[in-house]
């Protein structure tokens, strides 16, 4: 009797799991299944591709280089930054209405915001409004950590190198230059503005910065970035936020303003415009270019014809391959061969 019990104890369980008999779906990638799938996917992709492509083509983009590296540009006087507060004006005309909302970007090339040392040279705690880090900034901020032992706020390379050209746009109507209102709100990530960056909880703001010094490159203190609007001043200044989000690649654009207000809510109408540039940012040292871009967007983002083309190409490839597979299938009919 005892022995029998032992018997049953040694016998493996007869379950689907232990016997590797779990119910399983065993798909076979044979032409019969794949061809219809490919045709479907291909057709769908072609459809999406056409849609994306057409949408993208409707987007209007106006791009202007104002670096001034070559003498012909109106800004070439400012190129070497011999003179502080250099101002130059670019005139341009728009042939047809750029449908609104129009976005106004500045762009830089050859600018490596994605360098590692550059990227880590910041203090997120400072920017979060943590005043304890005002006195002793993160050591990663070096060489923009202290100036003769006075801590820099905001410290680090990223903040120090903030883009400081400013632009004013005028529409020339009958010889008069009418300013085009530019909206600088909501150009940064909502979460950056509301959570990740915070001013220290001190009023007035300036008091929080006692015993600190502004980054050496800056001409204004951080609490003076926008003295007109407290909600756009200090660390939560939208231009500052935009700059602090590092670009992934060396050629990039950053949003400067939106043109949405007043007469321009429908877009930029045709006509002559002039762009007044306060040229401060040096790019000649690394051979970079500066530009401004006016563009509108579609439901799928900015101008990007490649996405549509990619869908079209892959979609048609799918269809072509399904034809090829059909031929193969007809020729090598398997597994119904003899």
């Amino acid at each position, binding site marked *: 009797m005892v022995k029998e019990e032992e018997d049953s104890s040694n016998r493996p369980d007869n379950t689907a799991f*232990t016997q590797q008999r779990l119910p399983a779906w065993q798909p*076979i990638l044979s032409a019969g299944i794949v061809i219809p799938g490919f045709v479907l996917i291909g057709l769908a992709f072609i459809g999406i591709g056409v849609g994306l492509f057409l949408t993208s083509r409707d987007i209007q983009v106006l791009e202007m280089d104002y670096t001034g590296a070559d003498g012909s540009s109106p800004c070439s006087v400012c190129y070497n930054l011999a003179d502080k507060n250099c101002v130059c004006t670019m005139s341009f005309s728009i042939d047809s209405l750029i449908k609104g909302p129009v976005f106004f970007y500045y762009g830089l090339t050859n600018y490596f915001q994605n360098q590692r040392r550059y990227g880590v040279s910041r203090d*997120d705690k400072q920017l979060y409004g943590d005043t304890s880090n005002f006195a002793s900034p993160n050591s990663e901020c070096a060489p923009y950590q202290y100036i003769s032992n006075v801590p820099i706020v905001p410290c680090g390379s990223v903040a120090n190198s903030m883009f400081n050209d400013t632009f004013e746009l005028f529409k020339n109507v009958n010889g008069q230059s009418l300013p085009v209102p530019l909206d600088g709100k909501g150009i940064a990530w909502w979460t950056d503005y509301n959570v990740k960056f915070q001013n220290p909880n001190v009023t007035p703001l300036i008091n929080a910065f006692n015993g600190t010094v502004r980054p050496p490159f800056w001409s204004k203190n951080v609490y003076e970035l926008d003295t007109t609007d407290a909600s756009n001043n200090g660390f939560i200044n939208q231009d500052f936020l935009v700059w602090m989000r590092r670009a*992934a690649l060396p050629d990039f654009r950053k949003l400067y303003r939106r043109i949405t207000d007043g007469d321009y809510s429908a877009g930029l109408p045709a006509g002559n415009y002039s762009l007044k540039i306060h040229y401060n940012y040096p790019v000649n040292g690394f051979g970079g270019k500066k530009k401004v871009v006016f563009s509108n967007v579609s439901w799928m983002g*900015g101008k990007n014809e490649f996405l549509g083309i990619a869908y079209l190409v892959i979609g048609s490839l799918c269809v072509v391959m399904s034809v090829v597979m059909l031929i193969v299938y007809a020729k090598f009919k398997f597994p119904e*061969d003899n």
Partner: protein
Amino acid sequence: MLRWIRQQLGFDPPHQSDTRTVYVANRFPQHGHYIPQRFADNRIISSKYTVWNFVPKNLFEQFRRIANFYFLIIFLVQLMIDTPTSPVTSGLPLFFVITVTAIKQGYEDWLRHKADNEVNGAPVFVVRSGCLVQTRSKNIRVGDIVRVAKDETFPADLALLSSDRVDGTCHITTASLDGETNLKTHFSVPETSVCQSVSQLEALQAVVECHQPEADLYRFVGRITVTQHGEEIVRPLGPENLLLRGARLKNTKEIFGVAVYTGMESKMALNYKCKSQKRSAVEKSMNTFLLIYLGILLSEAVLSTILKYAWQAEDKWDEPFYNQKTEQEKNSSSILKFISDFLAFLVLYNFIIPISLYVTVEMQKFLGSFFIGWDLDLYHEESDQKAQVNTSDLNEELGQVEYVFTDKTGTLTENEMRFQECSINGVKYREVNGKLVPEGLTEDSPDGSTAHLMGEEVLFLQAVSLCHTVQISYDQADCLVGGDPFSHANGFSSSSMEYYASSPDEKALVEAAKRIGVAFTGRNGETMEIKTFGKCEKYKLLHVLEFDPNRRRMSVILQTPSGGKLLFTKGAESAILPFSSSGEIEKTRLHVDEFALKGMRTLVVACRHFSPEEYIDVDKRLTAARTALQQREERLQEAFSHIERDLQLLGATAVEDKLQDKVQETIEALRLAGIKVWVLTGDKHETAVSVSLSCGHFHRTMNILELLQQRSDNECAEQLRRLARRIKDDHVIQHGLVVDGASLSLALREHEKLFMEVCKNCSAVLCCRMAPLQKAKVVRLLKTSPEKPITLAVGDGANDVGMIQEAHVGIGIMGKEGRQAVRNSDYAIARFKFLAKLLLVHGHFYYIRIATLVQYFFYKNVCFITPQFLYQFFCLFSQQTLYDSVYLTLYNICFTSLPILVYSLFEQLVHPHVLQSKPGLYRDISRNSLLSFRTFLYWTLLGFCHAFVFFFGSYILMGEDTTLMGNGQILRANRQLMFGNWTFGTLVFTVMVVTVTLKLALETHFWTWMNHFVTWGSIAFYFIFSLFYGGIIWPFLHTQDMYFVFVQLLSSGSAWFAIIIMVITCLFPDVVKKVIYRHMLPTSTQKSQSLPAPQTQALSCMESLCCYQHGQSGCSRLAGLLEQMSGRCTASVNNCHASSRNNRSWSDTETFYSNDRSILTLSPIESTHC
């Protein structure tokens, strides 16, 4: 070397001298120059670790693996220099990997400890301070007097002091050491043999001197010095005085012996090679691949460093105004900077070496190996034993076997001989219920049978029961002491009597004769006693004409009770029939052939009556020959052949050496799978050949080549050359080779190449008369031959341990001969037939699982790290990571780990029944084909291609950073935000996780609910985790780079489009490739995938041989397979036969398939088509 280390570690005492002195009962001399010696204790240690050294030793072992060591270095580099990622990113996975491996190895070692403790804790009786003390086996010290009772095994190597017999002898069987089942008599020296009680032993003063431990089982040189009455008596000791650990006491009530070699120094333990770490072929190729990847890594790092400096040569890139250097950076030496840059790149790219590969492989092996133990098909009902996995490191090696070396006795056979039929005087008889039934008679009258036995029949039975060398063991040894052993020899208590014979055939014959009524009851000096139907008869044994392989027969000359002189002879039919002059010679010959065809072992029995004059002549000749000083051998042969002629043929016997169930089918299946089967046995040549024939290893149609009894090098070489020539001349027939141990050692010494050449051209090789170490040598020879085939050794006895350990995979059969083989094996199964499923199904499964696992791991890490490498070209080679550290850390251990693990546990490319019924599928994976360099290249290139698609796809689609970020939130218009570098990286990472997971999904053929769960679960987990990780400001992190990045990414509609298009772009060429290959060049594996899983009929069909042929025929005629499977077995087999005959026009070039031709029933077209 090893011994030196062991000595240093204190395992072995240093051996100062060539001999050791053992003081019996540890009574050391009170005076004189006694140097205490340290001997090993009697513990058998197979475990690797102890509680104390586990942590350091295990860590050391683990860091010996190049991958682990490499990650340790990376970790240390990260601690020391400024690197792009924190030490945690590689420290955490490393810690995880090391911990999991340590837990697994610890568990395995714990199992070994348990097994060791069982052996070491076995109770033994030792004489200590004048009385018998029960203690544990491990406590025996050298010099202890140990008592061993009947049927117990010896716990150490003992010098026999005394037994309960007056003459101080005992019988032992060394079956578990060398596989010999006969009884051997061992002796004690007269001075000690009188000490039969504990008190007498207590008074014994003796010293044993012997050489230091050595592995040779048959060598023992020593002497014993007994001090009696102040007088020293010295006696020599030889192997016949030594009782080896592992041998079993038989037929003797109890013995006393003094332990001379204990524990790891016993001959049994020395014969075990130290457990070498076996590495599977997969692991070897894995290491090769790792090295290649290390090369890729280094070249990427070097390239990056050089480019970095090339770039930095221009000042505007080196230090633009926006990215000034610190004082420290400016001042540090350029060489130091160069080195630290190189190391930083190394750290950045280090993930290309898949850290979790080893741990996943180990988990896969460890968890996967449970399936073997769980398999009901590998469970043996009768003995209640399931398959046992001793090491999980070799699972996949089961799918790679090219040579199987099998022991014979107990492995192929049940180790049980049964007398089946005989032919007496031209009439065939069968044994039914202990009665001889003549052929034709179905029902014998119940009691009349004995009366019907006629003179010839009785004479035949008498011959059988007298002409042998069998010994008798009585269960109750005290009967022997009682003086009349024959009192128990009647039919009723016959169970108490056991026959022991070196030849199991003789044993079976004698037993059969006893059942029928002529019982051999004992040998008493010169007389042999039998009981013929209850009547006791005593025969005087005059001469024994011993068996020798040339004559292939043995004879005895007896004096009958009536005084006549009678010769009985027994032997192979070819050795007797030509010398027979009377009797039913032709009929008998027919019968013998008939028996042999049935696979039975046949012997022919004959007799010769001598007239007194004749006998005198015979006696004279024999005595002269035996005492001859010169040419004794020849003269003996001459005398024998003079005597053994004019024989009167009595009949023939047919003994079935009971083969294990389905051995023939299994060997057949292994052959079809392209595996060569070698039988290595300690048995005699004839026995071996006959078993080989009966189990289908040799075929009757085979041309059997012999390399036997070679005495000299030249002779051996000559014979080898002859054989090679014969093979060349005659390549249509298959050849089988028979080698014996002595010739083999000659062949191996000088003519290895030639021998290998011959062996390779033989479809079956049989090595007989092999010593345990020779078996291992043969395995090693094959293993190290230029092709480096994967070998598997299977055996059941301790004599097989050597080869089990030597072979790539060692399989133990849980048989009758103890558990040494099982303990030292990698896998243990109850029966030989299970080997088929173990290899064909489990091996296949494990191999494809692990092969895909390895390749996939490299692929997914190429995908992972190449974008990071490409990114360096766009960030001034500043070592900026593309992905966040958390993603870097978790990619391998969370996001992509489970699907491949589950895949590697459950994947089944082909249904197990199909695998088993079509052994040819095994060839598809042979020679590590799924891990060939080509497939490796395919996966690596695929990884690079995919990585390029991820990176450049994202690069182009992102444009100048703002294009993809559509309208900010999908539904809220009017936003056009920055993408930023982390969003870019996350986009690449997302595409990668999805693609890599779906790529595995494409590879998966067997989707259980678990595969679904982990595949879709992994993707879902990635999304949920990212949302969570990006949704919180983490107080302990000093940068909040990833805050809301993922949400921002997903809130853009075009990002979704981008993800979809990139994933599809990566995967669709793969699908196309698969479909086209499947239809244009389908492998047989793929073909059999489309077969519906065989239903129950197929299962029952499997039970018979015909099914194997089925599977084969199905290979070429897929369409017909289903119908065949579901019935019409016989019809299709016949078809099979026919087709094989018709198509026997194979070309000589396809040597690879030469194996298959050995099988009559196999159609060659199939094998070539498979």
